[in-house]
């Protein structure tokens, strides 16, 4: 099973870039372009790693309380 990564980044071109590189390296990726989208993904999926845009951190840091498998 491949590891899954959440990319929280509001700049779509950067988010897609990270996704392409990570997928090409064999990871599963999901993109969230807002804090609320990130929350939704976290509720639905189990991620091994979350990459967070520093500008979105105020919206996302409370979500750090989610379980990382």
């Amino acid at each position: 099973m491949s590891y899954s990564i959440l990319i929280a980044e509001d700049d779509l071109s950067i988010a897609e870039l990270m996704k392409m590189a990570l997928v090409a390296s064999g990871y599963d990726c999901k993109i969230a372009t807002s804090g609320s989208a990130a929350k939704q993904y976290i509720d639905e999926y189990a991620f091994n790693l979350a990459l967070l845009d520093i500008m979105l951190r105020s919206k996302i840091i409370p979500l750090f309380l989610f379980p990382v498998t």
Partner: protein
Amino acid sequence: MFRLDYASNISAWIYSQKRLSTQISLMLAVGMLFLAVGLLFMIRRALNPLVELSLQAKTVAEGNYEHQIEVRSSDEIGQLAVEFNQMTESIRRHTQMLQEEIKERERFMASMAHELKTPFTSIMGYVSLLKNYNLDREETKKALNFIDKESKRLDEISKKLLNLFRISGGQGVTKKKISVTSMFKQLESISGMFLAEREQFLKLEAFIEYIDGDEELLMLLLNNLVENASKFSARGTHILVNAYREGSSAIFSVRDYGCGISQEHLDRVFQPFFMSDASRSKKEKGYGLGLSLCKAIAEAHGGRIYIDSHLGKGTCVFVNLPQ
């Protein structure tokens, strides 16, 4: 022949004369002494403010503009002290203004570097992706599209920056008589496309026929304001553009019925690269340069720009151009 011999003892008289002269000399000496002391005191007193002034000048030279000299008299020296205080105050204000300007420039440079860096990061990333990975056809196309989009973004930012620099530098304003009706016609055709996308429309009302100004720049200004108004209004709403006279000025007003700007953001909206909501503005393709550009254009015409906005009710931007 008669002869009168008179003899008298005058030693007492001589003695009293001598005493008198000693007394007079003594009194003169004491008087002179008093006069000298008095003069010295008066000179000291007169020069004291000058000494203080000289000390203050040294303090100012060292860069301390806060201290003020106490003005004790209304004579020429007192006047000099008042003027010196005024000069210090004026230097303090100018220095403060310059410091604020430097800070603003630094902020501007930092924002500019950030705004240019983001597209570059993305372009360089996609290029390295294309170089190092075997992407399939679809992904290659996607990567190229992003490179294309981000290069256009860079191009757009540099164009806006160049305009901003050119206009803020006070170059390139060529004033002539422009017909407001023809400006409004141009505005309709330029903004028609993006307004149609959002099902919005313009309401144009001209209460004046002509204005003096640089047509190209004023069109850029109006188009920017209409574009902003459109971005922050709901689909299907209208944007009201008026041109009228107020005293000796011509006023353009662009009113929308959109989301409005909060009071805390109102002062900062003219700062280059300021965006009230960074993530939303990215989606709306904003750079935070539009209003800075509008301000520079209004100021290059000797005019000013100001905003009246209420959250949830809409925004009205006024451009006042002295004629």
